[in-house]
């Protein structure tokens, strides 16, 4: 099909009929129905496509949510670096802390330097070792939290080199390993989500192909008559596809609205779960606040659009394939 044919096809397309097809059968104008709605496998197919759309919206929303949460996390830890001082073989660790802090405060691109006390460091180990006096006896590394100016970041490598040249047993951690791990986790979640979306799309296509075939079989007589009065493949396929697009949009909307309700209720559910074994902090680390922003809801709208397109393309190809078998 060349561009001229494509433009003519779009121009001549019965858009009004397509819009009419979005309405449930009882609200559709009777004269527009060459293929009656009742002859298309309706309710069961609508339910299946609605469930598929629901799953697709949930997956898309969840992947988007995890991605947003990970982005925020990466952004958070990217604006901080940690300096670690090894207390072993250091006569006066407090003095060394002060010297290193002063050195860091002088560096360009560093906005805030916060030396952490020995108690602060010990506190970090409490989840594993418990609250015990024995912690004070252990040579726990001392930490300095450094906030950097993201608009004018310092040369981390130069600072790291200068620290190791001027101070013994001082290391700089820019959380690169963490960031890489978070990114890997996010990418894995996104890939998993895409795989689920592909499976949902494949299942939707399979269901529509089967429904198209059954609709073609039950409307065999109508197709023959349309053939006899000179209808071409495009006309016949449009008569069928408008039913399937209408059905796809209606079912897609049901799925998307249901998924949106789940996302709206998610923060409440998370708050309820937070009081149980899973803490609110842990949940929010994984999926953020549990709220989906406007962009996230747009993904649900996109799912409805994609489902409608799948219904349109699949039913059209299915009808044309069956029509090819005619003389």
């Amino acid at each position, binding site marked *: 099909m060349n561009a001229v044919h494509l433009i003519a096809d779009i121009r*001549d397309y019965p858009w009004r009929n397509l819009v009419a097809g979005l309405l449930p059968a009882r609200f559709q104008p009777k004269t527009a*129905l060459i293929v009656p709605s009742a002859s298309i496998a309706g309710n069961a197919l609508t339910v299946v496509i609605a469930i598929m759309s629901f799953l697709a919206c949930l997956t898309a929303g969840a992947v988007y949510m995890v991605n947003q949460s990970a982005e925020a996390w990466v952004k958070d830890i990217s604006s901080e670096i940690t300096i670690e001082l090894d207390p072993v073989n250091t006569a006066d660790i407090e003095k060394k802390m002060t010297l290193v802090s002063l050195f860091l405060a002088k560096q360009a691109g560093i906005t805030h330097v916060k030396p952490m006390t020995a108690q602060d460091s010990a506190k970090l180990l409490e989840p594993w070792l418990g609250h015990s006096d024995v912690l004070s006896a252990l040579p726990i590394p001392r930490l300095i939290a450094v906030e950097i100016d993201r608009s004018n970041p310092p040369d981390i490598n130069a600072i790291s080199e200068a620290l190791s040249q001027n101070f013994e047993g001082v290391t700089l951690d820019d959380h690169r390993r963490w960031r890489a791990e978070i990114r890997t986790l996010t990418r894995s979640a996104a890939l998993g989500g895409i795989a689920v979306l592909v499976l949902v799309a494949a299942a939707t296509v399979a269901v529509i192909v089967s429904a198209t075939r059954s609709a073609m079989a039950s409307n065999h007589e109508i197709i023959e008559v*349309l*053939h*006899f*009065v*000179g209808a071409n493949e495009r006309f016949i396929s449009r008569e069928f596809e408008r039913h399937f697009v209408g059905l796809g949009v209606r079912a897609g909307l049901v799925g998307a609205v249901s998924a949106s309700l789940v996302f709206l209720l998610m923060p409440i559910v998370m708050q309820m779960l937070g009081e149980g074994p899973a803490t609110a902090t842990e949940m929010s680390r994984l999926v953020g606040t549990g709220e989906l922003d406007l962009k996230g809801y747009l993904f649900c709208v996109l799912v409805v659009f994609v489902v409608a397109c799948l219904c349109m393309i699949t039913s059209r190809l299915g009808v044309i394939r069956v029509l090819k078998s005619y*003389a």
Partner: protein
Amino acid sequence: MIRFENVGLRYGNGPEILRDVNFHVLPGSFHFLTGPSGAGKTSLLRLLFMSLRPTRGLIFVFGENVSDLSAAGRAELRRRIGIVFQDFRLLDHLTTWENVALPLRVLGKKEGDYGEDVTDLLRWVGLGDRINAYPEVLSGGEKQRAAIARAVIGRPELLLADEPTGNVDPVIADRLLRLFVELNRLGTSVIIATHDYGLMDQLDAPRLVLYEGHLEIR
């Protein structure tokens, strides 16, 4: 307009229904197609209408070799042909008016442009009071007339009719024949498949006689 050259037809591995059929239909001509039951009249009409492909031989419709045509090409040619089936083939979920308007709707015409023509034609074939009736409540004769109205509404260049007067009384049969003759005068070629010798005797038109798969022109 139509040319058959050594056309043969068989269904599957069965015997040949049509053998070496040769004939030529000129523009504006009128033919009867007759023969005993099972002689292959309906099959020949279906070949003319391109809803069957010949097992052998060549068929030219409006100068086009049917075997070379795509599905879209065949659909284009069908728009120039009107056909009346023995079993009417009306769509049960459409009213008489909607059934008759179907070929014009398929052509993409607006309802406002053809609405009056459809109503006038239905009145002419005696279905003026059955415009909004569905086929299931129509009698055999009424269905027959609706099927004929559907076939002629698009002013076809060729009209094929399979036993068009089989279910109507002699008065209506005469009226329908006059409709076919009138269409023929306006330039439509007409081929009527019929057993009805009374109908054929009313008109001095060549007869294509099918007998045991062979075609003779009398």
